[in-house]
């Protein structure tokens, strides 16, 4: 009798505690994502589209814990989406943790892959850089060979036979493109996390940082040339055009700096953060902003030529196709802005969040949504040529 009574008490208390914890967990985690899901865009080379989608594992952890996320690199036909090969990118274990904890370090990919010669390069949240044979999908090298770096959020670029990337550990790395060996003079240490993709022009590398600075340094030996202190963190990728570096910041300003000295040429105030890279066409800079507008600014003096309001935040990198700027909004609308008239046309509405950079080749725009769907749209009409779910 006494044993039965104790069992009832234990059951009641356990139920109460579990209910309380479940409630607490769900309330606390509500609306927050606790595991990186990635948002990589595609890149097209020689008729092949390379994409690094996220692979959500089945089942999650307790409460609001998301499922673990893995990634892979996929090579597809740019014409019809036929899959040539795919290779998994290591980095996570299955299952989730308790509460808000992700399972292990996921290999979610945010930056688009880069193709140079016979290799395609990609960096992941799991702190690794992969070089993979573009034809066969065979892994050539991985950096670091042992262990991993802090999460790599930005993309990689290939220039001067080197692979450059910034890391959340605040360092900029340069690796030999063929072997993956770290180059002399690198890593270059900054004062904050780096989530931005670098840009190289000539032998100078430009990269923005959480410490509110834009750094310019010699891409060959890693010596610093100059730094510019903005008022907010910089996660967007610099655009280098006519000896000027154009960059947006979290301080809601868009800056034009002299590429040689870092001197401020002009700055343009917007209403919210700049995250995406700008594009330039015929002396006009097009910069997408979180306030939902694409600002058309004179490259020389920063004069506002137009502010095209697209209605929701712009996170994804735009592309230029035949004198038109193709922009995707966070809500999934794809617009074409005519560079001559600065008038926008709605090309398509996929109604899925778009964070990944857009890519275009041969009059086709490739869009990878956060719902893991890949769309190939006609750049003129917006017609859906084909689409695939890639998980």
């Amino acid at each position, binding site marked *: 009798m006494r044993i039965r*009574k*104790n069992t009832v*008490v*234990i059951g*009641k*208390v*356990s139920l*109460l*505690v579990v209910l*309380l*914890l479940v409630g*607490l*967990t769900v*309330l*606390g*985690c*509500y*609306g*927050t*994502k*606790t*595991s*990186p*899901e990635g*948002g990589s865009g595609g890149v097209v080379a020689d008729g092949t589209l390379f994409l690094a989608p996220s692979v959500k594992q089945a089942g999650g952890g307790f409460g609001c814990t998301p499922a673990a996320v893995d990634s892979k690199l996929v090579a597809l036909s740019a014409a019809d989406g036929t899959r040539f090969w795919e290779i998994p990118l290591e980095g996570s274990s299955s299952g989730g*943790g*308790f*509460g*808000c*904890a992700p399972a292990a370090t996921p290999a979610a990919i*945010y930056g688009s892959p880069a193709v140079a010669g016979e290799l395609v390069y990609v960096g992941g*949240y799991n702190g690794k850089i992969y070089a993979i044979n573009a034809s066969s999908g065979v892994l050539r090298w991985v950096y670091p060979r042992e262990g991993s770096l802090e999460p790599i*959020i930005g993309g990689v670029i290939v220039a001067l036979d080197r692979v450059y990337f910034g890391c959340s550990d605040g360092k900029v790395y340069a690796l030999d493109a063929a072997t993956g060996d770290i180059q002399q003079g690198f890593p270059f240490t900054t004062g904050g*996390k780096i*989530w931005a993709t670098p840009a190289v022009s000539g032998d100078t590398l430009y990269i923005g940082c*959480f410490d*509110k600075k834009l750094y310019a340094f010699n891409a060959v030996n890693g010596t610093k040339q100059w730094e510019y202190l903005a*008022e*907010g*963190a910089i996660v967007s990728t610099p655009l280098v055009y006519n000896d000027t570096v154009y960059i947006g910041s*979290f*301080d*809601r300003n868009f800056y034009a700096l002299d590429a040689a000295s870092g001197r401020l040429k002009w700055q343009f105030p917007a*209403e*919210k*953060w700049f*995250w995406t890279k700008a594009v330039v066409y015929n002396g006009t800079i097009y910069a997408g902003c*979180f306030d939902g507008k694409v600002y058309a600014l004179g490259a020389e003096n920063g004069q506002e030529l137009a502010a095209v309001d697209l209605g929701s*935040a712009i*996170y994804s990198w735009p592309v230029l196709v035949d004198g038109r700027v193709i922009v995707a909004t*966070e809500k999934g609308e794809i617009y074409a802005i005519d560079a001559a008239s600065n008038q926008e046309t709605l090309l398509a509405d996929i109604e899925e969040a778009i*964070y990944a950079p857009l890519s275009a080749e041969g009059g086709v725009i490739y869009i990878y949504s956060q719902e893991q769907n890949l769309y190939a749209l006609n750049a003129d009409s917006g017609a859906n040529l084909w689409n695939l779910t890639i998980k």
Partner: protein
Amino acid sequence: MGIGDIWNLIAMQPVMNTLIVLTSYLFNNFGVAIIVLTLAVNGIIFPLTMKQVRASKAMQDLQPKIAELQKKYAKEKDKLAKEQMRLFKESGVSPAGCLLPMLVQMPIWIALFQSIMRVLAVIPENLVGLSGFLYSWPIVYTTLPLENHFLWLNLATGDVFLALLVGGTMWVQQKMVMAPATDPSKQSQSTMMLWMMPIMFAWLTMTFPSGLAIFWVTSNIFRIGLQYFIGGWGGLVKSETKKPVGRDRKYKERIAQVEELPSGGADIVVPSSTQEEGSSDEESGDKRPDSGGGYTKSLRATRRQPRKGRSHRRKRG
């Protein structure tokens, strides 16, 4: 505008932006900002907390009498409810006094809890999401993203030491307010809660971002201080060694008064002024008419059993 939007507008946005501004003024230290905001919120809702703690303490003091009533009227539910209500009324204790302040505080805690999770924004998706909650103040825009290191902690990941601290402080706090149960099943229930809650919270802390653990530890320490102020070390110290604190006289005097209620129709002594615990109440003594009879003989007999460590009992003059 949905409920979620209203919640964001009146709760989430103010708390999140305050956290960010505090971080900016506190040398970009998010950990210190969490501590300061937690203490500030505790300070703002202090009157409510005080009311709740006092009411809980009074309820705790009434437990022996409630147990007696339950035993006596085990088969007469209506009578039991009536007697309990009368006991509450005559002792000046309202059961809602424990719950109401807690219900008012809950949304504040949930908003603070969610804000810490969101403001940390350690992955791009969260940082993008955060942008929708920001006021247009320049200081907010220039402070983000926040630095997530504080002392030895990465505020975005769990920490074993903090987990132990959360569990430890929670145990101390619970132990202080734990009522000594006479019923063995209630005793084992209380003991289980005393251990299970801190252990589960400690485990949870290891998997939540440390920023939340800082919030919990700060809240727990604040409450321990408050509890000590009101009722001393409570259940932490053995009854024989308890020192009289006499900080919460209002309820104690009323409860003591109920203990001394005469049977059927006698007058009830009501204190004219508050007195230090342990002092004589002989000089306090205006009278009010009975509202309908006192407690039964058997209950009185139970109540009159001497309680160790309680120097607050009132004597009849």
